[in-house]
């Protein structure tokens, strides 16, 4: 089902005209209201009037995650804080989180885009949506929530966790749509199997999954075990949250809502825009958001774009599933994890520069994180309880900082591989493929 046929199926020429009008407008507005952006343009000798065609977008400078942190928290807001009615943020990766502000109009837009997303999965007013994404600063929960209300569905704002209760609610409330991370859906499947719940008896028919990379293999497994159709959605805090792109029933890539976000694919090393079909880093420009419109934001997600129309009728560009990232960020159970965060925790336990390694595995449906830490003379004790206490403390610190559980394992000194230059901190043993959403 197509929620907004006018925009989602707009002839490309018309769409490009709309994009250009909106692009010019947003550049003028951001230039006027965001000193940081104005200075960036000044340094390049550019002014908003230099943007005459869509291709002129390429003249503008990129904005990186690093810069978002530099301007923490509100430095890139293009509206006064009094017009901002909601704040969301990322998990706070390398030190400071990315903060996103939304005006009333932004929230309406977001709900509208999520309505498009859910409609692409045939979610309608007749559906009962179990929203098991986390509610809070994370964009997943409230993003889905307002979109589902917009289409008129019945929303159950259950958030994540307590899987048995999730299943009880699913069964008793006649849930038809499950929204959560793909790995959590498999956790639900596992518990259902343990409880001998026959999923084919339930009304559940669609899963709306995003916020972490997942593969087609995982999709098949989810569909088989939960007896549903699993759809892939994409979004990121810096841009709006979920609602940037979605799959349609043809599953031939994710349609990016181009009338609001202009995508480019660049060579991550040179920054040059690549031709259609090339694999590179996705760059997104918000053209309609008011409070926090990022211009040429480098997402670090590796994708490719195809512009030919889809059988579903949407003319919106399709991007393939995200196959990797250009930085060292890990996504574990939907949470962004940077090795430097773990380092930050470890430094607190040992004066010396700690040697550590992150090992990410798939344990059944769930991603698991093991942190191997070399035992230094400083922390070594001849009493087991003291060492176990250190493990527990580190686990606790990681849990409170990242919100995910990590298994801490102490290893003998000098056993973690040293490499020249940049340390190899991460061993990712999960299968390749999937998408970050």
């Amino acid at each position: 089902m197509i929620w907004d046929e006018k925009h989602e199926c707009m002839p490309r020429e018309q769409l490009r005209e709309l994009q250009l009008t909106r692009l010019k407008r947003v550049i003028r507005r951001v230039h006027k209201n965001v000193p940081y952006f104005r200075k960036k343009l000044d340094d390049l000798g550019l002014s908003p009037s230099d943007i005459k065609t869509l291709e002129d977008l390429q003249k503008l400078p990129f904005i990186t995650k690093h810069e978002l942190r530099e301007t923490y928290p509100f430095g890139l807001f293009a509206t006064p804080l009094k017009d901002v009615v909601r704040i969301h943020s990322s998990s706070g990766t390398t030190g400071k989180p990315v903060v996103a502000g939304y005006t009333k109009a932004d929230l309406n837009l977001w709900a509208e885009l999520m309505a498009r997303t859910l409609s692409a999965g045939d979610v309608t007013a007749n559906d009962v949506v179990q929203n098991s994404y986390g509610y809070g600063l994370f964009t997943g929960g409230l993003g889905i929530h307002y979109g589902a209300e917009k289409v008129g569905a019945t929303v159950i704002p259950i958030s994540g966790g307590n899987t048995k209760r999730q299943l009880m609610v699913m069964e008793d409330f006649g849930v038809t749509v499950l929204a959560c991370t793909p790995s959590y859906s498999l956790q639900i499947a596992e518990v259902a199997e343990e409880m001998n719940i026959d999923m084919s008896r339930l009304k559940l028919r669609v899963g709306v999954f995003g916020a972490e990379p997942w593969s087609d293999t995982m999709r098949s497994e989810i569909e088989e075990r939960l007896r549903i159709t699993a759809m892939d959605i994409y979004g990121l805090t810096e841009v709006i949250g979920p609602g940037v792109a979605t799959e349609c029933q043809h599953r031939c890539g994710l349609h990016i809502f181009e009338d609001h976000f202009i995508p480019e694919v660049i060579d991550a090393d040179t920054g040059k825009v690549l031709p259609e079909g090339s694999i590179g880093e996705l760059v997104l420009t918000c053209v309609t958001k008011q409070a926090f419109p990022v211009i040429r934001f480098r997402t670090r997600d590796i994708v490719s774009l195809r512009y030919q129309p889809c059988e579903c009728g949407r003319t919106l560009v399709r991007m393939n599933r995200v196959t990797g990232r250009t930085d060292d960020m890990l996504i574990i159970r939907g949470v962004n994890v940077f090795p430097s965060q773990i380092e930050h925790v470890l430094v607190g336990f040992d004066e010396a520069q700690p040697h550590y390694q992150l090992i990410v595995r798939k344990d059944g449906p769930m991603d698991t994180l093991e942190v191997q830490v070399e035992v230094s003379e400083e922390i070594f004790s001849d009493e087991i309880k003291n060492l176990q206490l250190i493990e527990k403390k580190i686990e606790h610190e990681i849990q409170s900082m990242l919100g995910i559980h990590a298994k801490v394992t102490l290893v003998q000194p000098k056993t973690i591989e040293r490499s020249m230059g940049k340390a190899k901190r991460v061993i990712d043993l999960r299968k390749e493929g999937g998408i970050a959403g």
Partner: protein
Amino acid sequence: MKVKQISVFLENKIGHVRMVTDELTKANLNLRAISLADSKDFGILRMVVEDPERAHAVLRAANHAVKETDVIAVEVPDHPGGLSDLLKTMEGCGVNIEYMYSVLERKSDKAVIILRVENTDEVIESLKNQKLRLLSSKEVYGVL
């Protein structure tokens, strides 16, 4: 009366205990007592060796996490109830035992127990007046 014990961190992997004993062999250091404490993820090898300082240096050079701890070595009559009597005495003195293990080799008719206690010096002091024989480090590192 304090005896130096050497502790070494061990990963729970095949061959890791031998990695330690091999280093001692290479350095021609004899073991007097040894005990392996295990947990789910790691182990701690506790040893009394004839030259703790050199053992420490050798093991550290081989990239092991090593620690020296003060322990006491108590002689116990080698007959049923011998250990119980010792423990009763310790109890009477209000001594809390962290861990203990016995010596591999002995050349007398007495057994030797290695004890790790809190406040080693105080414990040695309070045990002095009891009918117990604490071994000197020399005795322990040497022939026993």
